[in-house]
Each structure stands twice: as structure tokens, then as C-alpha cells.
């Protein structure tokens, strides 16, 4: 591996730089674009940047899952809702009903950023390990390492997440369902007719 490290440094650095720029640009785009659909697109950009960074950090499986789940499902859902509700009109960023909010928010954001950056420079006790095991087993693929940890050590949390997902699905169905009571049905129909 000796010479490989040196050889791989430049491409890695270049990849990181590009991905970082994409990520940050996307994030700023989410915050600054006036149209929610554009914001969603910018979010996808960020997600891809993060996925690339995941690959850079030997988390290929999570990179793929990131794209599948986030880009493929979550943002699609966002877009769906935007289109369904017809809320894709522009939001005026200049007008702010709560004047202090924006400046305090910006101040807090900069302050928090500065703090985290300072903290990331600090020396951290990086010796603590979880019970999960190592990322780079001898000749093992990322997905098998992850899978083993997930289905042995973290079996119970994993099962609980399945329950969580079921609950979420049921909750979403209940929330999104139109109430089918005799009284409101007519009103709703009426409202629908007006909408379209």
C-alpha cells in the first residue's frame, strides 16, 4: 500500500474539494433559493456531494443508501408535496415579519460555526470505541462489516427501526386520509370542486 497512499492523495484531495464545494453550494442554495422546488434541487446537490464524501471515507454502502433514500425517496416526497399542495410560489426573502429573527439567527449560526470549528481543532480523546467493531476488517467489504454489526450487535435497534417505519407509514396514511364522515364529505367535495 505504501506508494499507493501518496499516489492517491492528489485525487482524494481534488475529489474532496469538488465535493465540498458542491455540498456547500447546495446547502446555500437550499437556504437562499426563493422557489421551494429549486431548494429541493439544491438539496439533492448537497446530498450527492455528501454521498461522494461518504465514498471518500470508505462508507460506500451508506453513500448508496444516502442516494437511494434521500435523493430517491425523501426529496421526491418533498417535491410531491410541493406539487400536490401547489405551494411552489416564490417566497420573498426580503420581507421578514420578525425583524430580529434573521439577524439573531445569522449571528447564532456564525457563532455556532466558529465554536464547532474551534472544537474540531482541539485535541480529542479519539481512543473510545464502540462495541461494533472495525470498519476495515481484513479483506472485508464495507457492506458485510456493516451488515454483520447490524444483524448481531444492533439487531434489536434494527428491529425497532422496522417497527418505527411501520408506525410512520400508518401515521402518514392516517394523516393524509380525507376524513370520511357523512357531514364533511359534501363540504370537502365542494371545496375540491372549487379548487380545480
Amino acid at each position, binding site marked *: 500500500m505504501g506508494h499507493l*497512499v501518496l499516489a492517491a*492523495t492528489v485525487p*482524494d484531495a481534488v475529489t*474532496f474539494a469538488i465535493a*465540498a464545494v458542491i455540498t*456547500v453550494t447546495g*446547502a446555500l442554495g*437550499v*437556504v437562499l433559493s426563493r422557489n*421551494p422546488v429549486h*431548494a*429541493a434541487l439544491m*438539496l439533492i446537490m*448537497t*446530498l450527492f456531494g*455528501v454521498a461522494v*464524501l461518504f465514498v471518500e*471515507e*470508505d*462508507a460506500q454502502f*451508506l453513500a448508496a*443508501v444516502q442516494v437511494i433514500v434521500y435523493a430517491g*425517496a*425523501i426529496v421526491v*416526497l*418533498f417535491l410531491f*408535496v410541493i406539487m400536490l*399542495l401547489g*405551494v411552489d410560489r416564490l*417566497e420573498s426573502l426580503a420581507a*421578514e*415579519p*420578525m425583524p430580529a*429573527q*434573521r439577524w439573531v*439567527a*445569522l449571528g*447564532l*449560526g456564525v457563532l*455556532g*460555526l466558529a465554536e*464547532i*470549528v474551534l472544537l*474540531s481543532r482541539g485535541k480529542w480523546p479519539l481512543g473510545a*470505541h*464502540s462495541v*461494533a*467493531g*472495525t*470498519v476495515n476488517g481484513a479483506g472485508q467489504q464495507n457492506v458485510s462489516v*456493516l451488515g454483520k454489526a*447490524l444483524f448481531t450487535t444492533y439487531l434489536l435497534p434494527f428491529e425497532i*427501526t422496522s417497527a*418505527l*417505519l411501520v408506525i*410512520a*407509514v400508518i*401515521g*402518514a396514511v392516517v*394523516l393524509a386520509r380525507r376524513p370520511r364522515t357523512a357531514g364533511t364529505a359534501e363540504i370537502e367535495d365542494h371545496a375540491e370542486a372549487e379548487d380545480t
Partner: protein
Amino acid sequence: MSVPASFYLTLSALLFSIGAVGLLIRRNVLVMFMCVELMLNSANLAFITFARELNDVGGQIAVFFVLVVAAAEVVVGLGIIVAIFRRRVGATADDIHVMKG
């Protein structure tokens, strides 16, 4: 060991701050939601970085669970948003302040 971990962490911090500020200054509920996703992603990035730094797959596991929870959260959150805005026009968070003191 190519790019130092502090770079990743700084990027993560930047992402988090942008997300947080976005959450605070945007009024569109959906965009606010997206900003929450940004923050989650920054946390994920930090997790992965530490996982690599410590050679510990626990960080990746955490990210996995964050992804699952994020999916569930978005599903329910969007359900709520749809339920609320079925009766209203705009998607502005400031319109919903019935619960004020």
C-alpha cells in the same frame, strides 16, 4: 489517510450552521424541513468521519439509523403538513401560530 478529518468536520460544521440558519430564517415549512435534512446530513458526515478516524463501524451504524429515522420523520412530517395545508393556502410557518401564549 488523504484528507485530514478536521476538514471533514469543518465542512460538517459549515453544513450544520447553514442548515440551522436556514431553518431559522426561512418561512416556508417545506424549506425548513429541507434545512433539517441538511443538519442531519452534516451530523451524518461527522459520524462517518469519526467512524473512519477511529476505525469503528459504530459511526456508520449510527448513520444508518439516522437515515431510517429521517425517512420516518419526513413521512410523518409531510403527512402533517399535508393535513394542515389542505385547509390553508400558503405553506408559511408563520401562519400557524394558534398555540401562542
